[in-house]
């Protein structure tokens, strides 16, 4: 099996919810994600309330949900790493902005991580020493907010159909369908605070 085919097989397993593939992905990409966050988290006041593990888990949860719903087209590991690091940078920016706004408002004195878990964190708030990433609840939450048409596209993607095949099945162009699903997931992510 070529490297590309092997990677695509791996991504198919990730999309299908294979927990071993998910664990492998976390093991392989978490160090770079956390480093990308750590070295950009230079403000001491932010370092006290945000840690790379929180941001990393949020990013991976978002990634697994979107991947399961068929958003990403990735051909090689490098693209996956680029995507995850980009998501990490954006997430860190969002959380830092949120924390700054909180400080400005001076309404609450609680950590950003706690605030995110309380109101914005899409993953189950698990106070135990173990945490669960990208759970079933999040995926169901996202799916429920898609329209019937959007959910159909997501389900076909989750079934590993390519965009040309999906276009042949339900009509439209592959690119238009890809953009439609991407926009739908962005909309839902915004709605639920992903």
């Amino acid at each position, binding site marked *: 099996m070529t490297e590309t085919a092997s990677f695509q097989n791996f991504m198919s397993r990730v999309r299908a*919810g294979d927990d071993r593939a998910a*664990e492998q992905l976390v093991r392989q990409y978490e160090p770079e994600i956390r480093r990308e966050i750590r070295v950009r988290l230079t403000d001491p006041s932010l*370092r006290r309330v945000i840690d790379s593990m929180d941001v990393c888990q949020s990013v991976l949860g978002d990634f697994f949900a979107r991947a399961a719903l068929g958003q990403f087209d990735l051909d090689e590991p490098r693209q996956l790493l680029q995507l995850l690091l980009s998501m990490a940078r954006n997430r860190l920016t969002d959380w830092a902005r949120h924390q700054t706004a909180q400080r400005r408002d001076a309404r609450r004195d609680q950590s950003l991580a706690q605030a995110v878990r309380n109101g914005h964190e899409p993953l189950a708030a698990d106070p135990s020493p173990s945490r*669960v990433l990208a759970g079933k609840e999040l995926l169901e939450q996202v799916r429920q907010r898609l329209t019937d048409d959007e959910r159909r596209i997501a389900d076909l993607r989750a079934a590993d159909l390519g965009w040309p095949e999906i276009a042949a099945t339900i009509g439209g162009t592959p690119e238009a369908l890809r953009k439609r699903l991407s926009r739908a997931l962005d909309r839902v992510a915004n709605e639920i605070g992903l």
Partner: protein
Amino acid sequence: MSRLDINVVRSVDDRSSVVRDAPTESPAAHDLSQVVADLLADRRRRWNDGDRVTAEQYLSEHPELDATPEYAIDLVYSEYLMREQLGERPQADEYLARFPRFAAQLSRQFNA
């Protein structure tokens, strides 16, 4: 297993520490994390004052960081990013040559 069941159980880091962020979860790791945080702040200050202290200098002054390469790599990679922020165009090859022992990890970070 349902395709929707993606469960990755992770251990959680020590949330009682003032500086919570560390690649590993041991108390010693948190101490080193604080060292790196202090060094990053020190570098920013010194570079702003025109003193371009290098990652090599910091690593030689803090040999304890070599015991946990993750911290040393943070120090190296952050220098690269700081140069980018200053409008320079640092080359990945330069860093791979300067820090061959971290080449594998740096390559992944740079290529992304």
